[in-house]
C-alpha cells in the first residue's frame, strides 16, 4: 500500500519537477552564467567578464537613477496604499446596506486592465483635452502637464498606482476587521475605552497589526514591480524621471539586447525580491504565534 503511494506520489510530482527545472531552476542557472559574460543576443564570440557587470551597475547612472526612482515611487505609493486602504476599510466596514456598493467601486481598478485604464488616464491628463487640466486651470494652475513635467511625472504615476492598489488593500483590511471578535470591543468598553478613537487604538489597531504588516510588504513588492504605467504613459521620460528598475531591465534585455548586463540586473532585482519575501515570511510566521 505505502509502496504504491510512493510510486503514485513520484509520478504525480515528476511533471511538476520537470517544469521547475525547465521554467525556474534552469533559467536561474543560465541567468547566473550570463551575468558574468558579455553575451549579446546574436553575438558570435562570448567573453567572461567576471563580476564586471555587477561593478558596472554601481557606476551606471541610468541604473542608479532607476533604483532611486523605484524607491521614490514606492515611497510615494506606500503610505497612501496602506493607510488609505485601512481608512477606507474602517469606513466601509461600519456601513451595512451600502457596504457592497463601496466595495465594488473601490475594487473596480484592481479588476480592470491597467494598460487600458492607463490610456484613459493619459486622456484624462491631456493638457488641453482632459478634464483634470480643466479642473487644474479652474484653480489657477493652467498649463500643468502632469505626465510631461520631469518634476511631476513620477508622482503622477504614483497617484495612478495608488488608485489601482488601494482597493486591493481595502479588501485585505476588511477581512482583517471581520476577524476581530465583537466581544473584544465590549470588553474594551467595560475597561473604560470610550470613544471611537480609543477603541481603535486599544483594539482595532493592535489586532490588525499582522494584516497591516502583510499589506505593507505586498504593497511594497507590487509598487517595486511598477512597469505597465511607465511603458504605456512615459516610457521612462521626461528626462529619465520615470525610469524604474523593471523598465530599464526591459530596455537592456529586450530592446538593446545587452543580455549579459541585463542578466546581472535581473540578479540584483531577484535579490531585492528575496529580501522582501523573507521579511514577508517572518511576518506571516509571527501572525501564527499571535493568533
Amino acid at each position, binding site marked *: 500500500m505505502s509502496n504504491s*503511494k510512493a510510486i*503514485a*506520489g*513520484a509520478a*504525480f*510530482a515528476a*511533471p*511538476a519537477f520537470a517544469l*521547475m527545472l*525547465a*521554467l*525556474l531552476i*534552469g*533559467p*536561474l542557472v*543560465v*541567468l547566473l552564467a*550570463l551575468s558574468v559574460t558579455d553575451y549579446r543576443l546574436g553575438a558570435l564570440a562570448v567573453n567572461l567578464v567576471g563580476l564586471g557587470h555587477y561593478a558596472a551597475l554601481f557606476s551606471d547612472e541610468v541604473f542608479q537613477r532607476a533604483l532611486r526612482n523605484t524607491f521614490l515611487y514606492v515611497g510615494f505609493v506606500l503610505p497612501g496604499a496602506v493607510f488609505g486602504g485601512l481608512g*477606507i476599510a474602517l469606513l*466601509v466596514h461600519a*456601513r451595512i446596506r*451600502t457596504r*457592497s456598493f*463601496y*466595495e465594488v*467601486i*473601490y*475594487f*473596480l481598478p484592481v*479588476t480592470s*486592465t491597467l*494598460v*487600458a*485604464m492607463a*490610456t*484613459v488616464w493619459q*486622456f*484624462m491628463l491631456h493638457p488641453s*483635452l482632459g478634464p483634470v487640466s480643466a479642473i487644474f486651470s479652474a484653480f489657477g494652475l493652467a498649463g500643468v502637464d502632469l505626465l510631461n513635467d520631469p518634476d511631476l511625472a513620477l508622482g503622477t504615476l504614483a497617484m495612478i498606482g495608488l*488608485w489601482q492598489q488601494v482597493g486591493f488593500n481595502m479588501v*485585505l483590511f476588511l*477581512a*482583517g476587521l471581520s476577524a476581530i471578535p465583537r466581544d473584544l470591543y465590549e470588553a474594551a468598553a467595560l475597561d473604560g475605552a470610550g470613544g471611537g478613537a480609543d477603541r481603535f487604538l486599544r483594539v482595532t489597531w493592535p489586532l490588525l497589526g499582522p494584516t497591516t504588516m502583510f499589506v505593507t510588504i*505586498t504593497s511594497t513588492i507590487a509598487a517595486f*514591480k511598477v*512597469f505597465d504605467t511607465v511603458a*504605456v504613459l512615459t516610457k521612462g521620460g521626461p528626462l529619465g524621471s520615470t525610469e524604474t528598475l*523593471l523598465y530599464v531591465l*526591459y530596455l537592456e*534585455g529586450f530592446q538593446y539586447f545587452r*543580455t549579459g548586463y541585463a*542578466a546581472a540586473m*535581473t540578479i540584483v*532585482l*531577484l535579490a531585492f*525580491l*528575496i529580501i*522582501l519575501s523573507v521579511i514577508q515570511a517572518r511576518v*506571516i510566521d509571527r*501572525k501564527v504565534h499571535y493568533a
Partner: protein
Amino acid sequence: MRRRGFLGALLSHAVLLAGAVLMAAPFLWMLLTSIRPPEEVFGTVFNLIPTRFAGFENYAEALTSSNLPRAMLNGVIVCVGILAVQLLFAIPSAYALAKLKFRGREWLFGLVLFGLCVPIQVPALPLYLGLAQAGLLDTFFALMAPFALTVFGMFLFRQFFRGYPEEVLDAARLDGMGEFEIVWRLATPAALPAIAAFSIFSIVAHWNDLYWPLIVVTSAERSVPSLAILAFRDTETGGNYGALMAAAAITTAPLILGFFAARRAFLRGITMTGPR
C-alpha cells in the same frame, strides 16, 4: 448619542462618496467619451453628457480599424490554455505534496516556496533566449509556456488538500480506487472552491499581463488585448479618442462584467495572496 451616530454616518458617507467618485472617474470618463462624437471631444463647449450619441460609430471604429477582435480572441485562447495546463500540472503535484510520501517531497515544496517570490521578469531573459533559439517566438506556445508552472497554484491546492480527511481517501483505496482516480474524481471536485478562486486569479493576471506579451509577440496575428490597446493608441495619432476609449472599454469589459456577476468569487480570487 443618536444624533452623533447620524452625523458620523453622514460624514463617513461623504468621505466614501468623494473617494468613490475619484475611483470611478476614469471609468465614467471612458464610457462617456466612448459615446462622444469627435466634434465634442475637441470642441470648446463642454457637455458632460454628449449631445449626440456617437457610440455606434466609435465602437465600430474600434472593432474594425484595429486587430482588437483578433487580440480578444487570442486573449481568451491564451488565458484558457494557460489555466488548463496549470490545473493539469498543479492539482496532481499538490495532491502528492499534501497526501503522498515520495522521495524529494521536501525539495519540491522548498522549490514551491522559493518560486513564490520569483516573478516572470526574472526567468524572462533565459526563456526568451530559449524560445528564440527554438524559433518559437511570436507563437501561442511562447505566450503560454512560462506560466505552465504555477507555484502559487501548487501552494494553494496543497493547503486545501491537506485539510481533506484521510479516512475518505483510505475508504476509496479499500474500494479499489487508484491514486490517479482519487485525484481527479475525489479530490478535484472537493477542491472546486479553491479551483474557482485560483481560476479567477489566473485569468485576471494573464488577461491583464503586458510584460511577457510585449517581449515575445511581434505580429498582429498573435496580439493580445493589452498589446492591441497600445498599438491602437499609437496608430491613432490623429487622436480619435472616442474610438480609443471604446477600445479600452471593450478590453476591460470581460473582467469587469465577470466581477459584477461573481463579486465574492472575484474578491476572494484576486486577494487570495492575502493572509488566511
